[in-house]
């Protein structure tokens, strides 16, 4: 927030802040009138105070279940084009097996929304960028389809669209010639909803995915991250992804 924005505090903004302050007062331990980290107004920009993250519990993730992948495809309008080798892939299920112990587990892998994203470092046009709240996105208006980011990403999280796209979801514009990847369902997150994959996982009864603000100590995800051991994939690269895995 710049100083100008504070100076121009509208009556509505003032009321909202007052309400949040009043509501933030604890009525009883753990019970508040209004959650402080409530919905952001549409005219308000994404906040630097927030760091969106995803915690995936591989112990709960069911092998063979791909509800999250299906939900992602439905939400974002990703359809099979008959070219499976080059079809865009925003999220995939990975089955892992420890050869010594024979222990198997399964987990979804998508854009890890790094704090220091290599895709942003290499992008020659500035199309690949990280939003203030930690969501890594591609601005298709300036993407030239050079695919440097695809090569730079250690998680293989990005794809390029080779085919014409029709019947897009009005909230998720997609088209030929641009690179794309998981957006953490930014259009839903901005309206205070959960990403489609998280919703689908809960609907299937697995509850293996938790979405929330890692910076908010009251959020479920922050509390779980503080309580249980979780890891980041390729933590050695020190990219500090926002997606964390439990039980890997």
């Amino acid at each position: 927030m710049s100083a100008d924005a504070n100076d121009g505090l509208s009556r509505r903004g003032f009321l909202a802040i007052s309400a949040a302050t009043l509501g933030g007062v604890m009525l009883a331990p753990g019970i508040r009138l209004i959650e402080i980290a409530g919905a952001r107004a549409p005219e308000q920009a994404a906040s630097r105070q927030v760091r969106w993250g995803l915690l995936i519990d591989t112990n709960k993730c069911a092998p063979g279940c791909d509800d999250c992948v299906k939900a992602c495809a439905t939400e974002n309008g990703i359809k099979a084009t008959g070219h499976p080798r080059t079809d865009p892939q925003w999220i995939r299920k990975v089955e892992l097996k420890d050869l010594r112990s024979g222990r198997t587990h399964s987990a979804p892998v998508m854009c890890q929304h790094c704090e220091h994203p290599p895709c942003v470092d290499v992008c020659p046009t500035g199309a690949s960028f990280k939003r203030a709240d930690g969501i890594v996105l591609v601005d298709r208006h300036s993407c030239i389809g050079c695919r440097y980011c695809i090569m730079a990403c250690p998680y293989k999280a990005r794809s390029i669209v080779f085919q014409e796209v029709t019947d897009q979801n009005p909230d998720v514009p997609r088209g030929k010639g641009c690179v794309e990847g998981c957006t953490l369902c930014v259009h839903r997150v901005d309206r205070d909803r959960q990403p489609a994959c998280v919703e689908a996982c809960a609907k299937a009864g697995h509850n293996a995915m938790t979405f929330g603000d890692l910076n908010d100590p009251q959020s479920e995800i922050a509390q779980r991250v503080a309580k249980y051991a979780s890891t980041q994939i390729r933590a050695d690269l020190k990219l500090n992804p926002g997606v964390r895995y439990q039980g890997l």
Partner: protein
Amino acid sequence: MPLRGLMRLLACLVLALPALALAAERTPKPVIIIDKPGRCVEDTETMRREHPDMLKHQRDQTMREGIRTRQHSLKECVQCHASTNTGSVLGEKGFCQSCHDYAGVRIDCFGCHASKPKLASGAKP
């Protein structure tokens, strides 16, 4: 037979007169069909002149900062201006395409953006 030739020429001229008079209307004019009457977000003159800038400004704010106001968003344009016949802003008589064809300006928007509003059944606030 010069007289007959002259007559023929005259006849041709007489026949061609209405066509010449209509010559001014031979240029195809854009078809602007507004199915939902009511006020646009700005007045017509401003919209005609400034809509590309408005859309560009809004797109950067939405994309980069997550500001999702509806005032100048392309999604809202489509929502309101999609034809009731085709359900789209594209097509020969589509609100966007008709004018853009006339002006000879290519619209890139709908390579990625939906040219049809979200179906009512799947409508979300």
